[in-house]
């Protein structure tokens, strides 16, 4: 076809933005995604401004103990006389720092390992794959508790331990995507330009496997929140006096025996559930739109 030909309408050129807008449009139309996103946005807002918007100081112990639901204390008070409602609003702060950082660490590590093993195959791949199998055989909490007992607990250790446990799991997803990509001719073409392996992996292949990585990241975030809450409950995660949700449950769950002080546990538990469910809704929505 010669260039003397009248150009097809300029519509074609704006199609890059159309494509991007279409992906966003599909997300915006996905009720799953929107519901999850709204809930997460709410908790992120609370994590930042929780102490400011809360009716009382979440750490203030000067209120009457174990009051039921009332206008002044919408979710009642706990056994130390703290306002449960204020503590729920402020309680997202620590978990929303630790869980995303742990996820980020796992995703970055997993992506690098997945790219390397998927691209080079061979011995490295075999060894790493067996390590992944080994890690998957042990429950996350067991590994984490063992390490935290051994090294002593700090927030940084929690992040590193969860991140390191996620790394091989993420690497497996990335590796599978890379195995499919490396068969495509553009990889051979870029080798024929004389590109080195790191360039091929990170500049050529990586952008094409971002979709599964993004989905995996959201799924992992859900698990990370879950793991941090579990460790905190066991006493290895967030430390008092933080108003963290899992910490509240740990502080008050013994009261459930008496049966009457349910509000001290129910509201923080609902908060954790809502956050984990919301993250999973977002993951579902993303997976449906991106994996096409």
């Amino acid at each position, binding site marked *: *076809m*010669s*260039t*003397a*030909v*009248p*150009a*097809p*309408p*300029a*519509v*074609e*050129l704006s*199609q*890059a933005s159309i*494509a991007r807008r279409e992906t966003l449009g599909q997300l915006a139309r996905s009720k799953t995604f929107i519901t999850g996103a709204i809930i997460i946005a709410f908790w992120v807002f609370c994590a930042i401004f929780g102490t400011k918007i809360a009716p009382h100081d979440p750490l203030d112990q000067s209120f009457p103990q174990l009051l039921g639901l009332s206008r002044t204390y919408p979710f009642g008070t706990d056994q130390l006389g703290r306002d449960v409602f204020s503590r729920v609003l402020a309680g997202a702060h620590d978990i929303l720092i630790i869980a995303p950082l742990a996820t980020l660490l796992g995703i970055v590590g997993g992506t690098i390992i997945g790219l390397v093993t998927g691209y080079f195959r061979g011995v490295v791949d075999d060894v790493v794959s067996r390590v992944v199998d080994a890690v998957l055989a042990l429950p996350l909490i067991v590994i984490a508790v063992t390490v935290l007992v051994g090294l002593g607990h700090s927030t940084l250790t929690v992040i590193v331990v969860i991140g390191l446990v996620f790394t091989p799991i993420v690497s497996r997803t990335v590796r599978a995507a890379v195995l499919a990509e490396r068969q*495509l*001719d*553009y990889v*051979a*073409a*870029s*080798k*024929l*330009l*004389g*590109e080195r392996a790191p360039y091929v992996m990170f500049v*050529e292949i990586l*952008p*094409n496997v971002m979709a599964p990585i993004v989905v995996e990241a959201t799924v992992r975030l859900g698990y990370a929140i879950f793991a941090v809450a579990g460790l905190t409950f066991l006493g290895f995660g967030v430390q008092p006096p933080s108003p963290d949700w899992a910490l509240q449950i740990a502080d008050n769950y013994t009261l459930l025996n008496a049966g009457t002080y349910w509000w001290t546990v129910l509201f923080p538990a609902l908060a954790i559930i809502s956050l984990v469910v919301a993250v999973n809704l977002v993951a579902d929505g993303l997976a449906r739109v991106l994996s096409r």
Partner: protein
Amino acid sequence: MTEPAPTLEIRNLDVVYRVRGRDRKILREVSLTISRGETYGLVGESGCGKSTAALAVVGYLASNGRITAGSIRVAGQDVVGLSGGALRHLRANDVSMVYQNPGEALNPSIRIGDQVAEVFRIRGAERPQALEQAEKALARVQIADPGSVLGRYPHQLSGGMQQRVVIAMALAKDPALLILDEPTTSLDATVEAEVLDLIQQLRSEFHTSVLFITHNLGVIAKMCERVGVLYAGRLVEEGPVKTILNDPRHPYTVGLLRCVPRGGTRKDRGRLDTIPGFLPSIDQELRACVFADRCGLAQEVCRTDEPPLYRITADHASRCHFHEQAQELPRATPEELGQPLAVDRSGTPLLQVDDLTKVFEQQGRHIHALEGVSAALWPGETLGLVGESGSGKTTFARALLGLVAPSRGTVQLDGRSLPPRLSLRTQQDVRVLQIVFQNPDSALNRRHTVRRILRRSLKKLASIAGGALEARLLKLASSVRLAERYLTARPKQLSGGLKQRVAIARAFAGEPRLVVCDEPTSALDVSVQAAILNLLVELQAQRRVAYIFISHDLGVVRYISDRIAVLYLGRLMELGPAAVVFDGPHHPYTEALLSAVPTIDGGGRARIKLAGEIPSAAAPPSGCVFHTRCHRNLGEICENEEPPLVEVEDSHLMRCHIPIEELRKLQRKGSTAMAPPTPSPPTSAAPLPASSS
């Protein structure tokens, strides 16, 4: 006078697809009639609405598609708007469809027997009886040993066998109408020929009417009685196949026919003609002639008045105001090339390959993909590489480029040995050997813009950086006729032809001296193919670049190649100047390949049927590897002794026990001399030993 109703009668059919909230017209007032036992071909480039027409007939339009006007009658019964039981009845009894990719048409997790038997079970047969009938159905499509095929899964069959199974299922119910949607496009030429023969034979046996959809004019010439040419959803010309091919009366048909290299045309005789422009996008409102924008004959009236259907003869009609002048359509591409294309073979060859061998190891088996191939190539020359899939063409190319390290043998550039692996070669050597891949979708990174792809290749291959880069980029883009506005686009936004131009530009970024073209046009429409071939020839004339051109389209190979190498099971069977290899005397394998290709001009060669399919490269046959399928098998010597590759005449190499003079005699007499092709030798997955006389 009670004439039976035609099998298919489509009247003024309009089909729209709803895209982003608006109805887009895909078919415009299409009318066609297929009478009983007739084969009707529907041609046109991709996006013309061929498949939509077929899907409308079986009520299988995508959920956003609908028929807005017109009628479709199958054997007199109106099928528009059928639903539920009536539609199922139509699909179960009256109309069958065979799709392009048999691998996708079969359910991978159900045994062949049960899949075929389903056709009978739907009509009430019990499982044992249905299986029995299924076996008979497979036997009818000439599958040897149908009993064992019943128990296999689709992935255990070759592509040709799979397509036979699909056809068996389609014909099992003895339909009034059989719709074939590009049934052989994904098959090798030799397998394609067998499937086409089979369809032809079954058609006469069953008196089924056939709607044959294809973009391949050669297949149309071979298979069809009448042809309809579809363009932008409108039937622009219709008539008997001979008339359409020899006396076309619509400029689009004329253009299509000119795009195809035929009758032994070669690049030194001039460029191929092309059809300028693009198919109108579905967003465009088309009020007047749909082809006016791309037509060299278009006048004012073409842009204002919709041409009616002009009757040229009783059965030949064209939708063109100027149908009488259609054949005087001016060329869209000038014929002269400007530069001469002579090859000088006196100096050191640019590339010299010696004893190149590649053995892959796969689950303990040794796959001999390439076995002792030697060849040389001089600057400005094109070596065509032909052979069925599995013959080692791609492995050969990849070994040259260093993408796979050969097990044995050397590749020399200007008389200097190249390291076997790409990673060990210097940037200078990397620059010199480049490739254009078959599938531009796979070959271009879909996340990068055209600008980024080309900038990077200039940087790496031409070592240009900084301010000079942009200027060179524009120069490079214009050398492959890629308009500047496409530089910001990503591959997905480009048409197949434009994508292939980007891929060619990348290969030419650093003044390559040898470019491997691995079926660069097989994913493209014929008009785009012509433009890409012209571009390759121009670049060759300007830059003296050499090509290794891999293709299964022998017309294309003949057009562009100076010499041809024929590969079979990784071995070089024949190597010689293009004209000699094509005109003969040729190797029996070449002879069979050539006879398999349906040509627009038809006839000429008697069909030579190859027995069975290409044997596994893990266990190549003893003696001459081709003896299991050879129609000129001499018996013992061929079975036990591998013939050497010898120069049988000036610069013509061949690997055959039969002396060249003998071949010349045999091939002049016609192929029936030694092994009369029985009407239908059964084929099976395992190669059958050819009967030696």
